[in-house]
């Protein structure tokens, strides 16, 4: 453990977060004159000064980040950030949230979950609404990745951070040989997508404030909205279509976008097995959902059933969590179907949550291999993605992930049941949080506000587990990690 370097990095990250997270809302506050400027100035100063003190204390440290330190930095950072991010909610007189609720809201934002405890969003000050959207945007690609792009000092040992932070089963994948360049490329793509998405929203009729705010949470696959009714507020099919497109794009591995950017072509998307499987899952879910909606006459007319069905499928399956309709009251198996789709989630290397499409694909292929082995006992069958064999090591890690994920799910489910929730609420709350989805079923379909405090803290852990893909957080709880 190299305490001083860990504290130093933490200090730098906090200063970065204070600037990125508080300065834009101050600006928004001045524009709309909503009286929140003071709150954000206070937040900025307290977080920045904390960061500065941490940094000054350890500025002379010349230690390098060790392999294990990466996990600690990343986890600590998310915990500290979740707490620091809750300051505006606490300080603001408009919301009057308790500490638990404020941390829950902030954590839900940063982890791009999108579960909320606040109702009456439409009446909140604009700057606070903007702050919520911004939290998700910063959390989507990750401030740590941004820091790696901006701060050369993280070059040393940065790979540890990158590995602990990046989603997907293959952790060592870099777009370009240099880590800082990789991080930059990721943020450029992220920024471009956000700008284009905001423009598109604006063009189809959102106000500029809503367009920017929703572009943040669409591209981050977050799901926060500035309205209680979420996307349903706009009641505009064109908005729905724009959202569908950008949720779909943000759910794709950014490495594919990077290649598209570099080579100015798009045919490699079709060649990528994960993308194909992702598109296949979404397409089949959409077809089933629309058919059920249509034949159960939930909506009048094909058009409404299609637009509502497809929107909800893409929103839930990519783990965004926007709603245009109360899908938890949809007929037959649809609520559960969509909910299970959220467990699969988006592609590795995207901003989405869930277990990631590629893991499911690998598990599926592994299962199929067992069937083949029964037929041909002597056959040597590799697992392949496209034409490339996947090393057994990766397959093992996928199984490990799956096992730990299921166990974590079950433990938290039992804990929630212990707080007195009913089974569907507990199940869907854990699922919605660990997959960074947001809205659940039954009691948590709209807001998490009425849950007991204990449940909220458990769900905070669930969100963090999901965002850090379980292992990064879990490794800290093993005695081996702390042994020298």
């Amino acid at each position, binding site marked *: 453990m190299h305490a001083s370097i860990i504290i130093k990095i933490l200090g730098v990250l906090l200063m970065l977060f204070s600037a990125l997270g508080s300065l834009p809302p101050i600006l928004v506050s001045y524009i709309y004159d909503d009286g929140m400027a003071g709150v954000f100035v206070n937040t900025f100063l307290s977080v920045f000064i904390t960061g500065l003190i941490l940094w000054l204390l350890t500025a002379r440290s010349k230690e390098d980040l060790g392999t294990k330190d990466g996990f600690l930095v990343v986890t600590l950072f998310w915990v500290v950030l979740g707490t620091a991010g809750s300051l505006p909610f606490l300080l603001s007189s408009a919301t009057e949230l308790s500490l638990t609720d404020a941390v829950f809201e902030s954590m839900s934002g940063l982890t791009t979950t999108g579960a909320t405890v606040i109702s009456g969003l439409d009446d909140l000050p604009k700057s606070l609404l903007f702050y919520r959207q911004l939290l998700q945007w910063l959390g989507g690609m990750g401030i740590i990745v941004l820091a790696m792009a901006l701060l050369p000092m993280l070059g040393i040992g940065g790979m540890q951070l990158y590995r602990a932070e990046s989603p997907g089963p293959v952790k060592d994948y870099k777009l370009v040989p240099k880590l800082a360049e990789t991080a930059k490329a990721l943020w450029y793509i992220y920024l471009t997508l956000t700008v284009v998405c905001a423009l598109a929203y604006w063009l189809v009729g959102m106000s500029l404030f809503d367009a920017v705010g929703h572009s943040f949470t669409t591209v981050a696959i977050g799901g926060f909205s500035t309205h209680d009714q979420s996307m349903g507020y706009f009641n505009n099919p064109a908005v729905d279509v724009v959202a569908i497109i950008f949720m779909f794009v943000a759910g794709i591995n950014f490495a594919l976008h990077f290649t598209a950017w570099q080579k100015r072509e798009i045919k490699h998307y079709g060649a990528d097995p994960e993308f194909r499987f992702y598109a296949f899952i979404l397409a089949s879910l959409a077809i089933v959902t629309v058919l059920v909606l249509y034949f159960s006459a939930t909506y009048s007319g094909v058009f409404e059933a299609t637009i509502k069905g497809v929107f909800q499928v893409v929103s839930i399956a990519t783990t965004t969590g926007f709603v245009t309709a109360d899908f938890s009251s949809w007929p037959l198996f649809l609520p559960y179907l969509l909910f299970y789709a959220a467990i699969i989630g988006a592609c590795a290397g995207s901003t989405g949550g869930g277990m990631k499409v590629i893991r499911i694909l690998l598990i599926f292929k592994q299962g199929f291999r067992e069937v*083949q082995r029964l037929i*041909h006992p*002597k*056959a*040597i*069958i590799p697992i392949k993605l496209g034409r490339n064999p996947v090393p057994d090591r990766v397959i093992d890690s996928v199984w490990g992930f799956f096992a730990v994920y299921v166990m974590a799910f079950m433990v938290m489910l039992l804990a929630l049941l212990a707080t007195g929730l009913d089974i569907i609420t507990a199940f869907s709350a854990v699922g919605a949080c660990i997959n960074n989805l947001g809205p659940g079923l039954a009691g948590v379909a709209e807001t998490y506000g009425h849950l007991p405090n204990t449940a909220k803290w458990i769900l905070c852990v669930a969100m963090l587990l999901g965002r850090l893909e379980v292992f990064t957080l879990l490794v800290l709880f093993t005695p081996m990690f702390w042994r020298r």
Partner: protein
Amino acid sequence: MKIIILGANQVGCSLAETLANEANDITLVDTDAEKLRELKDRIDIGTVTGEASHPDVLELAGGEDADMLIAVTESDETNMVACRVAYSLYQTPKKICRIRSSSYLVSDKLFGKHGIAVDVVISPELIISTYISRLLDLPGSLQVLDFADGKVQLVAVKAYYGGPLVGQEIRLLRQHMPSVDTRVAAIFRKDRPIMPKGSTVIEVDDEVFFVATQNNIRACMSELRRMDQPYKRIIIAGGGNIGMRLAEDIEDRYQVKIIERDLKRCTYLSEQLNKAIVLHGEASHRELLLDEYIEDTDVFLALTNDDEANIMSSLLAKRLGAKKVMTLINNTAYVDLVQGGEIDIAISPQQATIGSLLTHVRRGDVVKVHSLRRGAAEAMEAIAHGEQSSSKVVGRSIGDIDLPKGTTIGAIVRGDEVLIAHDDIVVETNDHVILFLVDKKRIPEVERLFQVGFSFF
């Protein structure tokens, strides 16, 4: 012609033997002195011991005035360096290089004058796997040879009892199939060649060579035997270079299983192949074959580099019910021994490979040579050049050309048009003429026939 052959392995040796018999001046280079001494005793060649790519070794081998360098050592890199050295030091006119790894075969630029300086790249594994996949695509054929980029094929078929033409005169072929144009190039009866005439009667067990365009081949074959169903299930024993190439080539068209005994190689194969099923085990293991439904297998191919293992596993597979077995046999002495018995087709790698090398050794403008019947016969595609006054073929009708004994013209390819040979067709300049020679001794005469006369100059 003065030829240097690098590498005294199977390809190199059989090439040296064939070429030495044709009055060429051969020098064989290898690191194995013992092996070279043995060869020198047996065939009339010169030998040099040393690293094939070293300039001093090439010098000793007579690189200075060699007409051709054939680099067929086991190492791609040695072969390429040797070609480059020969070109840089001696400007050797023709350099033939054996390349195994397909990674090298991506760009023609690599082998240009400013690159490795190779005139002809040959890959024995590729040639053999193509040869086998042709056989698989045409069930019932003993040999399928392409000419003029596949426009014309020469096919060897065994005549079976029950074929409509069996027991009939060849001239009736036209009445049987008025729309199909074909020509019987040669018939081998009890391993002796018969020059086919209109009155020749095809007998059971005759090996008939006929020439036809690709789309007419099946119709012709059905005259000589009942047609086999197209093959579907194939088991390949041996996942070496040939087995892997073949599996890659055919896995999209057939259900392929490939048996390999080395676990590491199995893993590699399974990573390279996409549809074929890779099985770890011995091809001579009865239970493994039964588990994999050998009795429903259309073709069992034994392609390891061990002749005896190939033969034994083929016999076992046949006994267990494989419909056809094809066996790779290096030792030419075995080929005659096994073919036509339990083993349906014995594939001689040397023979398949040597044709493509002979193409470059032949004088005159020869674009394709296929060696047939253990090298006793040969089929070639030559281009007729010159004017009526200077050439012995151009401007004459096929009936008038003074062909050496035992030689027939099977077809002529003029541009994109295929003309099956008839006596009244007149050969024009730049025609590709496809010839069949039952007797190799006549090759120099054929070569002379296609060389433009001196009066031309």
